[in-house]
């Protein structure tokens, strides 16, 4: 809900100049591409204009706009050189583009339920595809179930299918996370862009813990998104962490990711369980996520 505070403020400041450059109704939603000065944003639904899905600076598309996108790169403090990346929920394709630039040899599979979103990402957000970077129109749950049958493995799985107003409830259950875990390579990591407020926070935390055990919350601003990092083998030692930060700092600088600051926002749930121990785990049988999210 309080996702993109910075951009909201920016938009209030420049709202008179906001200009819709593309609009279409897809099977699932209204898609808007809006420009405010240098900022170009992808939005779902006219009414909820504050919740942008993805934004770029036209003058410098490398520079990441959203804090949550930057926080996602905390994953790289837990793994070395990802080779197979799976992204559920494309948005503007920003994550895919950055990861592909960072690791040109990595295979990146993007899964997006809405074909119109893929088209808009290509046309307006410079989403790049090649023989290493692909996109597929499919429900994330089905994709992962089929990948599990084919025994595919990914070392970096990014779950980014929630759009703030609506949660696909079958993507927030114990059974789904178990399927995700089954396609996670040994030593890999799952990064999920999730909610930091509302009653759902507790249920979501309990559900992640039920499948992955202790996980890491990454959050640097109050009331912003949190990124959950789960499924990794063990938390790196301070020395290892320092080495990775040093290595990543110059690599991530062009994207305006201050990986040191991000690393300071990482809190393991090991000694910091901030939800009641009797919180109900969400399952395929019990998943009223949208009813709990307020």
């Amino acid at each position: 809900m309080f996702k993109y505070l910075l951009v909201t403020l920016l938009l209030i400041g420049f709202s008179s100049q906001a200009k819709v450059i593309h609009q279409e109704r897809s099977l699932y939603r209204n898609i808007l591409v809006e420009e405010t000065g240098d900022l170009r944003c992808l939005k779902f639904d006219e009414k909820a204009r504050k919740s942008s899905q993805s934004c770029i600076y036209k003058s410098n598309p490398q520079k990441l706009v959203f804090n949550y996108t930057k926080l996602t790169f905390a994953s790289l403090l837990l793994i070395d050189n990802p080779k197979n990346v799976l992204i559920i929920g494309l948005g503007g394709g920003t994550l895919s583009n950055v990861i592909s630039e960072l690791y040109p040899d990595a295979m990146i599979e993007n899964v997006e339920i809405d074909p119109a979103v893929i088209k808009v990402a290509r046309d307006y957000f410079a989403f790049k595809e090649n023989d290493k970077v692909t996109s597929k129109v499919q429900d994330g749950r089905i994709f992962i179930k089929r990948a599990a049958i084919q025994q595919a493995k990914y070392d970096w799985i990014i779950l980014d299918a929630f759009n703030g107003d609506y949660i696909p409830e079958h993507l927030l259950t114990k059974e789904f996370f178990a399927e995700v875990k089954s396609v996670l390579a040994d030593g890999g990591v799952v990064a999920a862009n999730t909610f930091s407020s509302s009653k759902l926070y507790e249920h979501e935390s309990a559900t992640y813990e039920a499948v992955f055990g202790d996980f890491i919350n990454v959050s640097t601003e109050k009331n912003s998104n949190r990124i959950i990092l789960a499924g990794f083998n063990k938390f790196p030692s301070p020395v290892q962490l320092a080495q990775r930060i040093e290595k990543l700092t110059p690599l991530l600088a062009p994207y305006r990711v201050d990986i040191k600051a991000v690393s300071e926002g990482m809190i393991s749930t090991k000694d910091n369980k901030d939800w009641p121990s009797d919180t109900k785990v969400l399952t395929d049988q019990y998943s009223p996520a949208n009813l709990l999210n307020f």
Partner: protein
Amino acid sequence: MTLKTNALIYFLAFSSGFSIMGIELLGGRILAPFFGSSVHIWGSIITVFMLSLSFGYLLGGKLSIRQPSLTKYGLIFLVASIMVLPIALFAQPIMAYIFSHIEDSRYGSLLASTALFFVPTIILGMISPYSVRLLVTDSEHSGQVAGGLYFVSTLGSALGTIITSFYMVLAFDVNTIILGFATTLGLLGLLAIGVNQLANKEKHNV
């Protein structure tokens, strides 16, 4: 039919309308883990429910011709109750089998909806025409009786939809709700049969 048994028939028709839509709504929840939550999932579910209801109406009408009784009416509920059970008991293996054999989630979800919901919804569809047969006494009031019955059963459907989606999914597991519907239908069937037996006994005694 006395006034009391008429009230019972209306109440049973209401309950069957409630159960039909409650189950249909949960269908989306049941299919999602295997077939996703795209628009075509609802296409599959609604198609199967409409199709099986239409067959149910035909069959129920046909069945009502020969010696209609409250006992037979109750038996329809009992059969429906039993046919609803597999939705809770066997949905997982059935969907897993279909998922591994059909790549396209449109046809996968259509087949899964058919396997899970076709038979129980046919049985539930038989209830409306059979109720009309039990309630109608003369042709002059037949339209009014049918109208009243549609009113009651569709009102049940509306309430079944909203209560299931707003409150029951927050309080219970999907399977618990399905089993709750099955139990309710079964008990109502027994109630109808029991009432009929009592009424018959009284008739003999007079």
